[in-house]
């Protein structure tokens, strides 16, 4: 099964191709650009280049996996609109994956639980906690790094590097979701062959909008 993985939840614009055979994952090719303002420009060209580099076409894809955040950039929607439209046009399923789970799936197997944090901007992080085997035990949440109450000592994701001092946790790779991590995190859903869950972004924040107060007078009484 040939899977296109897409993620635009972090400053990285990621599109990559992974083959899934039984339980075996084989990375084929990818295109990644770290630029928080280029998601809308680059995600489709990256998908086309990755597919071409792997020697196939979009028509050869069997499924799409898309990181659904949490992510602070309007760019998150660029990847998701792309994944949803590609899936519709190609007549293939698009599976949602929590982008933090994709980072966790790439953390080298160890003994200890760990955190995954990404930059939520406004001096906050998106975070989730994982057991040593990369299963999520808490989150995702959005919080200021200093307000995080945890005894976990290692943390992956770019948020872990940005806020290493405030967190008191040792930052470890990776910083961003990879194509392989995304497909790993979606492996069960892909193999089950069942209807994918809806492609809904994990916003975690409400839109900034305030209802107008009583109208201000233009004349002074």
């Amino acid at each position: 099964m040939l899977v296109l993985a897409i993620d635009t939840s972090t400053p990285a614009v990621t599109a990559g191709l992974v083959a899934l055979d039984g339980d075996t994952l084989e990375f084929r090719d990818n295109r990644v650009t770290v630029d928080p303002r280029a998601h809308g420009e680059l995600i489709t060209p990256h998908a086309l280049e990755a597919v071409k580099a792997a020697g196939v076409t979009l028509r050869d894809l069997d499924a799409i996996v898309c990181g659904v955040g949490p992510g602070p950039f309007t760019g998150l929607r660029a990847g998701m609109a792309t994944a949803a439209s590609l899936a519709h046009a190609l007549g293939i399923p698009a599976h949602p994956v929590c982008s933090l789970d994709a980072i966790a799936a790439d953390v080298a197997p160890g003994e200890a639980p760990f955190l995954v944090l990404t930059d939520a901007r406004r001096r906050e992080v998106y975070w989730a906690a994982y057991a040593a085997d990369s299963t999520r035990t808490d989150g995702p949440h959005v919080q200021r790094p200093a307000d995080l109450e945890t005894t976990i000592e290692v943390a992956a994701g770019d948020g872990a590097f940005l806020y290493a001092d405030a967190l008191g946790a040792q930052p470890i790779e990776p910083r961003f979701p990879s194509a392989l991590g995304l497909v790993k995190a979606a492996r069960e859903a892909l193999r089950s062959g069942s209807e994918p869950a809806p492609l809904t972004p994990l916003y975690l924040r409400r839109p900034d909008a305030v209802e107008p107060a009583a109208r201000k007078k233009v004349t002074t009484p």
Partner: protein
Amino acid sequence: MPRIIMGIESSCDETGVGLVRLHDDDTVELLADEVASSVDQHARFGGVVPEVASRAHLEAMVPTVERAFDKAGLKLSDVDAIAVTAGPGLAGALLVGVAAAKAYAAALDIPLYGVNHLAGHIAVDTLQHGPLPDRCLALLVSGGHTQLLLVDDIASEITELGSTVDDAAGEAYDKVARVLGLPYPGGPPIDKAAKNGDGTAIAFPRGMTGPRDAKFDFSFSGLKTAVARWVEGAERRGEEIPVDDVAASFQEAVADVLTRKAIRAAKEHGVDTLVISGGVAANSRLSELAAERCAEAGITLRVPRPRLCTDNGAMIAALGAHVVAAGRPPASLDFSANPALPVQIVSI
């Protein structure tokens, strides 16, 4: 040459998908026009909230495409080219439509055209009234734009003669509606109230009509303040507000300035056709006064039906068809939406 063109629009609060057929004689036929609006989600905020609009676009995009194809009885593989609004508009909202359009174009392996929303408002009239004359004037009035445009070629040559220096006409309607305690969006309720009122009851100012003002620019901020001032004065005196008369007098001031400047521009540029489009084009007093003044001046007036005037995908598909017919080159798939796309750039 591509025959079936899909148009995708997401510049503000309407997710629009249109399908048109380009005929051999370059006429354009409407096949489907589906819109999902998030207007209700913005009502309590009194204006469009960009993040709310962007979230709604993402949710509505694929379902709206599906509905358009169902309506037209076509398959995705029948489409020969895609046109998408590249700007102007809200950055986060445009991004969703552009991302979706690129993905559809890549998956279907067909050309993509990034086109101008404002030009789309003019091109949509060809779906109802046929090809435009060699040269015409367009007045675009909506919640987002107020522009007087000279159109030499809908696919490539549009010149801005004037625009608003502050609020868009539709914005002034929203703000005046609020002053009068009428719901959002303000256009329809003010139009309704005005029908029972006297447009000459209160002499509200006609902005930018002085001898030293820019001939073809507009300003509605002073008018909006004048209405608020008048209403507050009446409130202070303990008088009941004659909502119908205020609405009619406000509407008269808007329609008077818009049509006066449009007719003057048509005369000065020797143009004999005026197209009025955009959400406010549906306003009854504006179309009435425009018809009257155009008849007097010997100008042909073209106003698309209300459904075509508001933001939709059909206007983008129609413009896309004209751009295709003119042989303009498609966009590269790495283009980005431009929230401030100037009207001279019809396709990028």
